C-alpha cells in the first residue's frame, strides 16, 4: 500500500503546486498596500500652488477627504481629472498634491480643465510624496477626520474605482464620524 501511495506522490505534489499557481494568477503583484494605512498623514509645510500661502497638515485635516497626487507630466492624471471634478461637485472633499511639477504648468492645467481641489499643495521636490510613499502619479489617499490614512489607490480614480472601492470606505468613515 505505501508503494501505491508513492506512485501518487508526483500527482499530489503537482496539485499542491497548481493550487499555488492558480492563486497567483488572480493576485496583482502591482498592488502594494501603503505602509501608512491607519497611520497619521505625514506632517508637512509646503506652499499652496501659485501663492505664497503656506499649507500644513492642520490646514487640510478635520474632515474625511481624498488627497490626489497629480502632475501635468502624468498622462493618466488628465484622464482622471474630469471624474475628480465630478466628485468635487458631489461634495467630496479633495485636496490636490501637485507632485514634482512646475507651478505655471499646473496652474494653466487647472485653469483649462477646472479645479476640483479645496486646496493644492505644491510639492515641488516630492518631499511630501516621499513621506507618503508615492511612487508614481496618480495616487489617491483616503484620509479620515482624525488625519489617519485609511486607503491608498494607485492609478486612475474613475466611476468603477470610486463606487467599488473608495466610496464604501468613504461612506463608512463619514458615517462613523456622524455617530
Amino acid at each position, binding site marked *: 500500500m505505501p508503494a501505491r501511495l508513492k506512485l501518487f506522490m508526483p500527482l499530489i505534489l503537482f496539485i499542491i503546486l497548481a493550487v499555488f499557481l492558480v492563486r497567483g494568477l488572480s493576485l496583482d503583484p502591482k498592488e*502594494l498596500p501603503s*505602509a501608512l494605512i491607519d497611520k497619521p498623514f505625514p506632517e508637512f509645510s509646503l506652499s499652496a500652488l501659485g501663492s505664497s500661502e503656506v499649507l500644513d497638515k492642520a490646514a487640510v485635516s478635520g474632515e474625511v477627504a481624498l488627497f490626489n497626487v497629480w502632475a501635468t507630466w502624468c498622462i493618466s492624471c488628465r484622464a482622471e481629472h474630469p471624474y475628480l471634478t465630478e466628485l468635487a461637485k458631489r461634495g467630496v472633499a479633495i485636496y490636490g498634491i501637485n507632485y514634482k511639477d512646475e507651478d505655471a504648468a499646473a496652474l494653466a492645467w487647472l485653469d483649462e480643465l477646472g479645479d476640483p481641489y479645496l486646496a493644492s499643495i505644491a510639492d515641488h521636490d*516630492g518631499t511630501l510624496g*516621499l*513621506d507618503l*510613499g508615492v*511612487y*508614481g502619479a496618480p495616487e489617491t489617499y483616503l484620509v479620515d477626520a482624525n488625519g489617519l490614512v485609511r486607503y491608498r489607490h494607485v492609478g486612475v480614480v474613475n466611476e468603477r474605482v470610486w463606487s467599488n472601492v473608495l466610496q464604501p470606505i468613504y461612506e463608512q468613515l463619514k458615517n462613523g464620524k456622524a455617530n
Partner: protein
Amino acid sequence: MVRICSLVLLLLTLPALAVIETYEFSDSALEKRYRALSEELRCPKCQNQNIADSNAPISQDLRRLLYEQLEQGASDDEIRQYMVDRYGEFVRYRPSFSGVTIFLWMAPMLLLTAGVAIAVMTLLGRKQATDTTEALSEEEQLKLKAILDKAESNQ
C-alpha cells in the same frame, strides 16, 4: 577634422552620463555602504529591479535620499527603517526576520532537510530491498529446487 572627431567622440559619451548620476562621497566607506544599500533596496515602481539598477524617477529620488542620509551619518538600519516606514517591507530585497517572513527564511533549511531525509530513506529502503532478495527462505528454496528439477527432467 580633429575638432569634428573629438566632438563626435564627446557626444558618444553622453549616454554614459545619462544612465545614472554619480555622487561624491566624503568617505569611501560611505560609498561602499551606498552601493550595498542601493543594491538591497527595491524600486517601488519597477518592482523587479533594485534602486541601483533602475532608472525610474522614484529610484533617482531614493538614491539621492540614500546619499543624503549617508552623508548625514544615518546607520544602515535607520535608513532601511526610514524606507520601510514609507514604502513598506516591500522595498527590502532582504526582508527582516519576523512572524510573516519566518517561512521565507526557513524554507531553504526545511527543503534541504526534507531532501536529505528523503534521500536517506530511499537509500535505506533500497538496501533493505536488496537484503531480502539475496536470501531465499527455506520454503522458497524448496520451490526453486522443485522447478529446477522439473525443468531438468523435461529435457
